[in-house]
């Protein structure tokens, strides 16, 4: 196996740059004549904007421009439509979609909604003018809870959308499920909340817009996960210009997790400001603004029901959910609580029948959009929690109950009742390996040791099965330089995951060239004709296969050149280990010689021109893949304070072929950290009456820190290959968020089962745990 081949744990190429402060994030970029924009945000959750008196602020030092909703309407800019994959209600009519402009036009509907943009020579001047801007609001009643928003008499967010109702949704076999419930021996039901969280990327959102009056072209440098899709929105929907007139670049992006997926209003505002002022305009969100205005995730309230036979065999699963999405549909907001959470209901278990239904409500809160997993972690948590609850209330062993109901390899391929194509996987084997890894033999002794200290110890295992998503197409382009350099351009985007390592790794391995020769280009609408950006664990699955496809097209062309140079028959040429070899004559020629020849007319076959090895190709996925695995946690709970510590954590993941185990570990660890955050620490809280955000800073929003995390043992299962794509990869990015929350929460419930505790809502804060113990006694 070559040094940098597939499957090698190559260290991240980009790390030196990032760790030595040499990354180029938005705020590192400066342009001549650049000016600064500050967004004025609504201090109210719901208020009529009666008047904005901009004149005195305009007269302040350095102020160049103030943009209000009135200006926006006058300019006739368009709204940003939702790209949700679910667009219809159950009755077939389109979902209710309020107009979403880049800023509030006459009514503000959440604290933090952009109400005006102030542009000045310096950032401080812009801040001063923003503070001085006189806005007259007429406060209205607000509703932040989606259940209350859908109830009669709730404050109405939109005149023409009665009842704050966006859409309803269903999937699965309603009647079959009902029949299974009616005839089952046992039925358990539990209300489960998936707490509302936010991504808190290290780098806040920000962008720089420039405009060239001569060409009428715009340049937008933006901390985004998705340059192509968002260009389509900014250019096509908002500015009404051809897409080619907007060059959209994402430089180094410091984390996204879904919060940088969408087309937000601020970049559109500064594009306009750049044209109006004739100057490059920079805008950078402060951390507080980030809490207020980044998209949030999860935030679903569900009733989950499980039907079982006497012996514990699962008969059916039924989930009904209410999700709030803020006051707009945003980019894909309506999808998560509908199709997003529906598809992977039931996890890797053999459910004969399933039914999922949901209602989606508008609320006076920040918008909802994907957050690492976008519905799949919700589904996994719902499934695992109800199984655990059933085991406890009906007296089954939770480990055994799970094990016996897993789909077995002989059942595959199969379409689940939720319509998911499960082609590969060995769920019982992955489950057993996780159990074996987690030292069950030593468990009793550890429980006793904890008890010595007055501490309860608990264990839980959580198999999960999810799916990939995001854009189905990806472009990969390879350009060869005469100096031996190789440039790889791909339309997917890294926000820190290591694409600069994994993608060149695939190319280098396929072409048999040195990894260090490959320069990686991403996040630029001019570098690739299309691009699916980042999201849905799609990079290797779609982008990686595009690279593989490009490499194979290159070696096919290489064969023709080699055949020409070796005076061989093309069919006799074999390519392996970086060399083309005539299998008949034994003569061979190195890849590098072929590359060199590809620049010289005289050394090429007639139909080929110099530079002919340069290749651009589009790979399209036929069908989404099924990442799966099994996570397990051991926790300690202090019954006196309610404090929880995750002591040990194990994961066996089936991501298909592992391209780079080091990067895969990073994905698992990061996902588990975020899953632990959701399980124990994180929650976005709005005041019920005022709609003010109560968790608006890191002093109040509890992110997991290094010392909150346990040592993790991670292994991969690669013995159930998928044929859904040539690389044989299944996706790795969101698995941790699916496995960790149920493993951790159920382990806490296990620890407290002797106290009689059956359920605690996430996050399992010390006070909630303490109260659960107290009320169970």
């Amino acid at each position, binding site marked *: 196996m070559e040094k940098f081949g597939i499957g090698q744990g190559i260290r991240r190429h980009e790390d030196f740059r990032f760790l030595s402060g040499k990354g180029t994030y938005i705020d590192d970029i400066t342009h001549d004549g650049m000016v600064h924009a500050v967004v004025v945000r609504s201090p109210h959750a719901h208020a009529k904007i009666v008047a904005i008196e901009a004149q005195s602020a305009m007269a302040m030092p350095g102020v160049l421009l103030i943009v209000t909703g009135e200006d926006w309407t006058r300019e006739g800019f368009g709204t940003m439509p939702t790209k949700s994959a679910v667009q219809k209600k159950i009755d077939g009519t389109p979902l209710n979609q309020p107009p979403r402009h880049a800023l509030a036009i006459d009514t503000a509907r959440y604290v933090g909604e952009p109400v005006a943009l102030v542009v000045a020579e310096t950032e*401080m001047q812009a801040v001063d003018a923003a*503070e001085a801007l006189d806005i007259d609001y007429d406060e209205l009643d607000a509703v932040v809870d989606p259940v209350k928003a859908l109830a009669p008499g709730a404050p109405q967010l939109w005149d023409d959308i009665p009842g704050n109702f966006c859409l309803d949704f269903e999937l699965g076999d309603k009647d079959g499920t009902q029949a299974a419930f009616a005839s089952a021996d046992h039925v358990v039901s539990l209300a489960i909340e998936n707490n509302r969280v936010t991504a808190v990327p290290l780098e806040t959102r920000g962008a720089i817009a420039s405009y060239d009056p001569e060409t009428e072209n715009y340049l937008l440098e933006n901390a985004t996960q998705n340059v192509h899709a968002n260009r389509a929105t900014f250019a096509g929907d908002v500015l009404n210009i051809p897409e080619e007139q907007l060059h959209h670049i994402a430089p180094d992006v410091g984390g996204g997790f879904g919060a940088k997926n969408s087309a937000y209003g601020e970049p559109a505002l500064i594009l306009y400001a750049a044209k109006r002022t004739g100057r490059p305009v920079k805008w950078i969100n402060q951390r507080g603004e980030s809490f207020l205005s980044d998209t949030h995730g999860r935030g679903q309230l569900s009733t989950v029901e499980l039907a079982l036979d006497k012996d514990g065999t699962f008969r059916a699963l039924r989930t009904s959910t209410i999700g709030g999405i803020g006051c707009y549909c945003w980019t894909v907001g309506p999808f998560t609580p509908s199709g997003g959470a529906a598809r992977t209901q039931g996890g890797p278990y053999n459910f004969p029948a399933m039914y999922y239904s949901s209602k989606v409500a508008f609320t006076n809160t920040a918008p909802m959009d994907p957050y690492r997993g976008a519905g799949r972690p919700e589904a996994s948590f719902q499934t695992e929690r109800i199984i655990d609850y059933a085991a406890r209330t009906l007296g089954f062993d939770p480990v055994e109950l799970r094990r016996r109901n897993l789909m077995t390899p002989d059942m595959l391929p199969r379409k689940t009742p939720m319509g998911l194509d499960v082609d590969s996987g060995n769920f019982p084997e992955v489950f057993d390996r996780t159990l074996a890894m987690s030292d069950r033999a030593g468990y009793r002794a550890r429980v006793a040791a904890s008890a010595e200290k007055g501490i309860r110890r608990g264990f839980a295992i959580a198999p999960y099965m999810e799916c990939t998503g995001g854009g189905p197409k990806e472009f990969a382009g390879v350009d060869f330089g005469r100096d031996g350099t190789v440039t790889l351009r791909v339309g997917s985007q890294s926000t820190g995951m290591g694409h600069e390592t994994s993608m060149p790794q695939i190319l280098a391995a396929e072409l048999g060239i040195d990894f260090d020769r490959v320069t990686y280009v991403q996040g630029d609408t001019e570098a690739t004709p299309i691009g699916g950006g980042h999201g849905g664990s799609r990079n290797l699955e779609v982008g990686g296969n595009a690279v593989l496809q490009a490499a194979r097209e290159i070696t096919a062309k290489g064969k023709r050149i080699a055949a020409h140079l070796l005076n061989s028959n093309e069919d006799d040429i074999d390519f392996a280990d970086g060399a083309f070899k005539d299998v008949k004559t034994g003569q061979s020629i190195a890849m590098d010689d072929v590359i060199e020849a590809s620049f010289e007319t005289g050394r090429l076959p007639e139909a080929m021109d110099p530079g002919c090895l340069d290749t651009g190709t589009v790979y399209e996925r036929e069908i989404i893949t099924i990442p799966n695995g099994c996570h397990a946690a051991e926790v300690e709970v202090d019954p006196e304070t309610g404090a929880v510590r995750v002591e040990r954590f194990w994961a066996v993941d089936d991501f298909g072929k592992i391209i780079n185990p080091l990067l895969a570990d990073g994905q698992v660890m990061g996902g588990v950290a975020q899953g632990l955050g959701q399980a*124990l*620490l994180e929650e976005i809280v709005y005041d019920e009456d005022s709609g003010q955000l109560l968790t608006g800073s890191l002093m*109040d929003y*509890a*992110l997991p820190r290094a010392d909150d995390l346990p040592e993790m043992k991670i292994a991969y299962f690669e013995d159930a290959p998928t044929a859904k794509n040539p690389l044989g990869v299944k996706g790795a990015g969101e698995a941790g968020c699916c496995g960790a929350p149920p493993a951790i929460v159920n382990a806490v419930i296990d620890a407290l089962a002797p106290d009689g505790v059956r359920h605690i809502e996430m996050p399992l804060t010390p*006070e909630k745990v303490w*109260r659960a113990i107290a009320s169970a006694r």
Partner: protein
Amino acid sequence: MYEFQYHRPESLDEAAKIFAGADDPKFLAGGMTMIPVMKQRLAMPSDIIDLSRIGELTGLSAGAGMVTIGAMTPHAEVAGSKEVEKAIPALAALAGGIGDPAVRNRGTIGGSIANNDPSADYPAAVLGLNATVHTTARDIAADAFFTDMFETALEDDELITRVSFPAPEKAAYAKFANPASRYATAGVFVAKTATGIRVAVTGAGACVFRVEAMEQALSKDFSPGALDGIAVPADELNADIHASAEYRSHLIGVLARRAVLQTG
């Protein structure tokens, strides 16, 4: 941040003169509270007087049953001091549990107690150990120093110069950290001192306070069990999104018992 004049005096006299001549001056120690507040424009001092060059505010000494800490001493120095560790281990441990390494390297004891954040740790030690706060104008007993939420006995122009802690017979601090900020959701400092038992609670009320009922119970019987049945009523305590008053009341009991246990 708004614009302000920046000064860095070399002596207390110079600092006093600058203060007297300024419109709305503020002292700056480690800046761990002051700078975020200014960045968010919640404070708009006309002048900032940086105390970092004033030698009279530095220094740490331990001897004759007393630990004296200069106002500008960062938490990390107290936490890492062998002398403090020997004389009052509970104080070194408390300092080592404040915030994170960056905060401990910048934040100072003077800034911490002058600020009197209801969930700060040092006030519990100052009150629990019956320390004396020395200022440019006078000496203030711990019992008279902390007056209300973010309020102290200090006059506007009065500077803390040092704090002296009499070494107790034994003492311990038990803290339950807020998972987000890592400040104290509740913290209890228990000390057996020459003048009697002292129990100081931080994080739970508007301002650090003593619990007399616990002190009396522990005077009779210095054991965790002596505290059974003694609770600080919830209606006197803080409630926020992190912890209800009832939970804080419960934590005070748990932490007090643990502190007693820790004193060994």
